[in-house]
C-alpha cells in the first residue's frame, strides 16, 4: 500500500465534517488496593480520570485542551490515540468509531493520527541522524515505496517542518540541534506519514521563549494549509488564546467551558475559567489584574466532590451547587459552560 493510494481522500470528501468526534468519553484507572484490603475482598475502586467528555476537531482547526495537572487533558488525548483504553464513549475518527476497534483494524488509521510530545530531547533517538529519525515511521508502517521515494518523502516532510534546506539537517544528530530544531524534527517525523490529525502535548513548553512562537506558527500553518486538524494540550492559556481556534477548559475530568478561543478568553462564563484567566501573568506590567487566587489545589479524582465538582473552590458557589452537577449549556454562539449560574446573569 503506498501513501498515494491512502492519502487523505476521506477528509476532502467530508470537508467541514468533524475529523475527530469524541462523545461521552470515560477513562478510568484502577486504584491499587492494599494487600489487606484485597484479602478482605474490599471491592476495587477506580479513578475517573476523564468523566464524560465530548468535543470535536474539524479539519483545518486547532483546538486547545487546557487545564491544570490532573484535569484529564493528557488522558483525553491518549484515549483519542488509543494509547489508553476508554471505559466507555465513542471516538470517531473520519466517521469511524475507533474506540473498540481491534489493533489490526486500527493500524492503518494510526499513521493518520500522530502525536507530538513535550520533550524533543527525549522523543528523538540520540543515535539516529535526522533523516533516519524522519524515515523511521515510514519503515515501521511499511509505506513510502522505494528508497528514493522514501528519501523524497523525508525531504518533503523536513521542508514542511521548516528545516530548510533539508540537506543541511539530514545528516546531523539530535545533539547538534537546538531545542526548536529538534521539535521540528519530531514534527517532520509525524508529517512524513501525512497525518490528518496531530495531537500535540505541550509542544513548546520545554523550548526557549524566543523559539516557541516559531514552532507554534509552524503548527498554525500546517493546519490552515493542509488536510489537518490539531488537538493541542497545553497549560498555557496565553498560547491557547493566540493560536487555537477553540479552547476547551477541563477541571477534574470534565469540560467546564468550551467555545471560540476569543470568546472563552474575553467573555469567560465559568467561574473556574475566570479564575484561571485572572492568574495568567501579563506581559505589560501596567495590565496586571488582581489575581483571583483559588485556595488549595485540584482535588484528588479519587474523592470527587458532590454536585458541581468545582464548588468547594468556587468563589461564586451557592447551596444548590453542592447537589446539582451542572451540564454544559449554551453560553453564547458556539460557546458552552457547565455552571448553574450561566444564563442567570449572576455568573459574574
Amino acid at each position, binding site marked *: 500500500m503506498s501513501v498515494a493510494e491512502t492519502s487523505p481522500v476521506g477528509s476532502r470528501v467530508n470537508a467541514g465534517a468533524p475529523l475527530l468526534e469524541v462523545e461521552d468519553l470515560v477513562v478510568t484507572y484502577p486504584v491499587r488496593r492494599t494487600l489487606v484490603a484485597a484479602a478482605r475482598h474490599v471491592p476495587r475502586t477506580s479513578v475517573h480520570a476523564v468523566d464524560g467528555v465530548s468535543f470535536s476537531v474539524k479539519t483545518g482547526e486547532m483546538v486547545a485542551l487546557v487545564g491544570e495537572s490532573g484535569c484529564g487533558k493528557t488522558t483525553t488525548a491518549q484515549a483519542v490515540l488509543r494509547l489508553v483504553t476508554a471505559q466507555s464513549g465513542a471516538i470517531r475518527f473520519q466517521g469511524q468509531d475507533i474506540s473498540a476497534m481491534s489493533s489490526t483494524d486500527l493500524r492503518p488509521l494510526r499513521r493518520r493520527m500522530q502525536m507530538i510530545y513535550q520533550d524533543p530531547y527525549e522523543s528523538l533517538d540520540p543515535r539516529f541522524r535526522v533523516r533516519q529519525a524522519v524515515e523511521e515511521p515510514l519503515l515501521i508502517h511499511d509505506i513510502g515505496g522505494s528508497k528514493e521515494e522514501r528519501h523524497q518523502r523525508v525531504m518533503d516532510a523536513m521542508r514542511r517542518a521548516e528545516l530548510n534546506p533539508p540537506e543541511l539537517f539530514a545528516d546531523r544528530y539530535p545533539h547538534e540541534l537546538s531545542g526548536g530544531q529538534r521539535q521540528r524534527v519530531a514534527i517532520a517525523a509525524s508529517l512524513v506519514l501525512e497525518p490528518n490529525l496531530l495531537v500535540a502535548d505541550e509542544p513548546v513548553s520545554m523550548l526557549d521563549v524566543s523559539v516557541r512562537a516559531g514552532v*507554534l506558527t509552524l503548527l498554525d500553518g500546517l493546519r490552515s494549509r493542509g488536510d489537518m486538524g490539531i488537538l493541542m494540550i497545553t497549560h498555557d492559556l496565553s498560547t491557547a488564546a493566540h493560536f487555537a481556534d477553540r479552547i476547551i477548559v477541563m477541571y477534574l475530568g470534565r469540560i467546564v467551558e468550551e467555545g471560540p478561543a476569543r470568546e472563552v478568553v474575553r467573555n469567560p462564563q465559568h467561574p473556574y475559567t475566570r479564575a484561571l484567566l485572572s*492568574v495568567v501573568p501579563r506581559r505589560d506590567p501596567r495590565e496586571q489584574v488582581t489575581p483571583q487566587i483559588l485556595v488549595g489545589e485540584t482535588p484528588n479524582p479519587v474523592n470527587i466532590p458532590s454536585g458541581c465538582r468545582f464548588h468547594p473552590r468556587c468563589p461564586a458557589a451557592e447551596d444548590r451547587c453542592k447537589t446539582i452537577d451542572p451540564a454544559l449549556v449554551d453560553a453564547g454562539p458556539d460557546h458552552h459552560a457547565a455552571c448553574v449560574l450561566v444564563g442567570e446573569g449572576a455568573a459574574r
Partner: protein
Amino acid sequence: MTEALLDVRDLHVWFDLPHGAELHAVQGVSFSLEPGDRLGLVGESGCGKTTTILAVMGLLPPSASVAGQVILNGQDIMLGAEQTVRPHRWKDIAMVFQGAMNALNPVKTVGSQIVEPMVLHEVAEGAAAKTRAGELLELVGIPAASAARFPHEFSGGMRQRAAIAMALACEPKLLLADEPTTALDVMVQAQILDLLIRLTDDLGLTMLLVTHDLPVVAQVCERAAVMYAGRIAETGPMDTLFHDPRHPYTRLLFAATPDLYGEGDVVSIPGSPPRLDHRIEGCAFRDRCDKAFERCVAETPALLEVAGGHRAACHLNDLNGEGAA
C-alpha cells in the same frame, strides 16, 4: 541614596571544559539591590542567569572560576571564596530552587529540615527551633502540624512553600529565587508568587527572581535585568523595558511572548544564542538582531545609561537616542 544590600560588580564566571577549553558563562555582570527591592533576572537557557546567582551564593562547582565582587552590606563575600561566603549562606542570603523536590531531603521530615539551618547557624535550637519551624510553615500557608510530615506527602505547591519556609529559617535579608514556579500549575504559581510578594512587602525581604518568564517578572518585580549570552543586555524599571525597550533583544523577547489578550502576531527570534566557549567579537546578539549594522560586528556595546535607572548595551542608542530598539 540608600545603601545597597547586594552589589554585584563585574562578575565573571568561567567553566573548565575538557581539552583545556573554557566556557565564559558570565561576562562582566553588575547589578545592585537595595533593601526591599524585587529585581528580576530574565533570560533564556544558557544566558548565565542561574550561574550568576550560584556565584552570589558561592555554590558553583569546582570546575568554575570566578572574578569580580559580590558585596553584601559593604563587604566583599567572594574575596575569600568559601571562607567568606559560608557565614552568610542561608543566614543572610537564602535560595529557593526550581525543583522543590530536589531541595528537600526525602527521608527527613519537613520540620527537621527547617530546624537544621537554624541549629547550624546558631539562630535557635531545641524546642525554640521547633516552634519557629511551625511558625515559618504557618507563614507560608502550611499548617504547623505538617512539620512532622515527609516531602512526598506534600503536593508540588506545598513542597515549594516548604522550601521557602526553609530558606526563611535564619531570617535572611536576601532571597534568591531560581525559577520558583516553573514546574507548577498556573493557579499554584499564582499562590506562590502572591506569597513571595507578601513576604517581601511584609518582612522587608529583598528578592532576586531568576526566570525565563517575562510575564512573571512583569507581575512581581519593579525592576529587571535582561541577560543574553552572559551579559546584561538591558536593565531598568519593568514598565520601561516593556514600553520603551532600548535593546532589540528585549523588544523581540516581548514580541515572542504570547499575551492573553494580545492582538499582534507572536514572532520568534531567528537563530540561536552564540556559544560561549569562543571569544565573541562585537555584539553577541548581532546575528539575530533585526537592526544590526557595521559597528555591531567590530565593537562590543557597553551597558550605558539611556535614562535614569535605565541602561542598555546597544550601539543604536548612540545613533539616535530616541526609541532606538
